């Protein structure tokens, strides 16, 4: 298993993701997007950052880069794909996952630890947790407000594709615990397959005990183990 961490111009969490994965004993390498994916990718991370300077909309340009056709093909074949922060924006812009991530309700860039409630524990991304667990993972984004049309939101909830919701320390999903005004406090969602997930918070920044105040994010990355 070698996880391909796709690096676009302006990605800046690619090294962090590789380091966090290797810390967990999972082999990982950065792949410059123009070099494409390996012939048979084992796993894919779309890392955080500001690909293409967030031109047009965050993630809009990278979502249309040729490598994303390979990512989509791999996702459809069941290869695990995780989008983090800018990678989540790229995932939604490319149609891998539903909804859109847009300007925070505060109109500010927010960089802070948040709490997430694990809404499902029966996915590869959350197998390390129990349903209802509260984990602490940092956010760092200006455009993380999850927006989705009402019908699509109902469908998302009915199909159990909400993976994480912003909550308080005790696990209560409240407006106060919603850092960016996301619809229904949604912080992370699944694609059509459970092997595809995106989230705005950074699990790779909550994995290494030497640099993080929490290592709660490691469980998400363990999906690649």
């Amino acid at each position, binding site marked *: 298993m070698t996880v391909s961490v796709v690096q676009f111009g302006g990605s800046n969490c690619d090294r962090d993701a590789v380091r966090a994965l290797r810390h967990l004993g999972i082999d990982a390498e950065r792949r410059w997007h123009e070099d494409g994916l390996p012939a048979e990718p084992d796993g894919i991370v779309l890392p955080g950052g500001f690909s293409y300077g967030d031109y*047009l*909309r965050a993630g*809009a340009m990278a979502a*249309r880069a040729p490598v994303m056709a390979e990512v989509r093909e791999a996702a459809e074949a069941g290869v695990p794909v995780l989008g983090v922060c800018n990678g989540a924006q790229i995932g*939604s*812009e490319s149609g891998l996952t*539903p*909804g*859109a991530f*847009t*300007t*925070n*309700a*505060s*109109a500010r860039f927010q960089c802070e630890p948040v709490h997430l409630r694990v809404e499902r524990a029966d996915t590869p991304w959350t197998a390390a947790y129990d349903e209802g667990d509260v984990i602490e993972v940092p956010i760092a984004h200006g455009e993380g*407000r999850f*927006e*989705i*049309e009402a019908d*699509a939101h109902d469908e998302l909830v009915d199909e159990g594709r909400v993976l994480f919701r912003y909550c308080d320390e005790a696990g209560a999903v409240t407006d106060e615990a919603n850092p960016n*005004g996301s619809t229904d406090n949604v912080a992370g969602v699944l694609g059509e397959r459970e092997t595809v997930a995106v989230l705005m918070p950074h699990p790779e920044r909550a994995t290494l005990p030497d640099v993080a105040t929490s290592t709660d994010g490691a469980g998400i990355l363990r999906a690649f183990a």
Partner: protein
Amino acid sequence: MTEFTATVTVRLKRGVLDPEAETTKKALERLGFELSALRSADRFELDLEAEDAEAAETRADEMAERLLANPTIHDYDVAVAER
């Protein structure tokens, strides 16, 4: 073939929160202006050659669908004029 300019205007759907517009409105009020609402939009001007106006509009429409707008949060309109 005729030269056209297709103008694509992309705006947030009604009801979708626009914190940037809200902040801009507040700044105008701070400058002493009175206004009840402010909506912002992105405008793209595309110069292109097409058989006729309809063909130019169709192409601009596809560009809006595939990149310029995000259908989850945006509405858009296209206006075509001969250049």
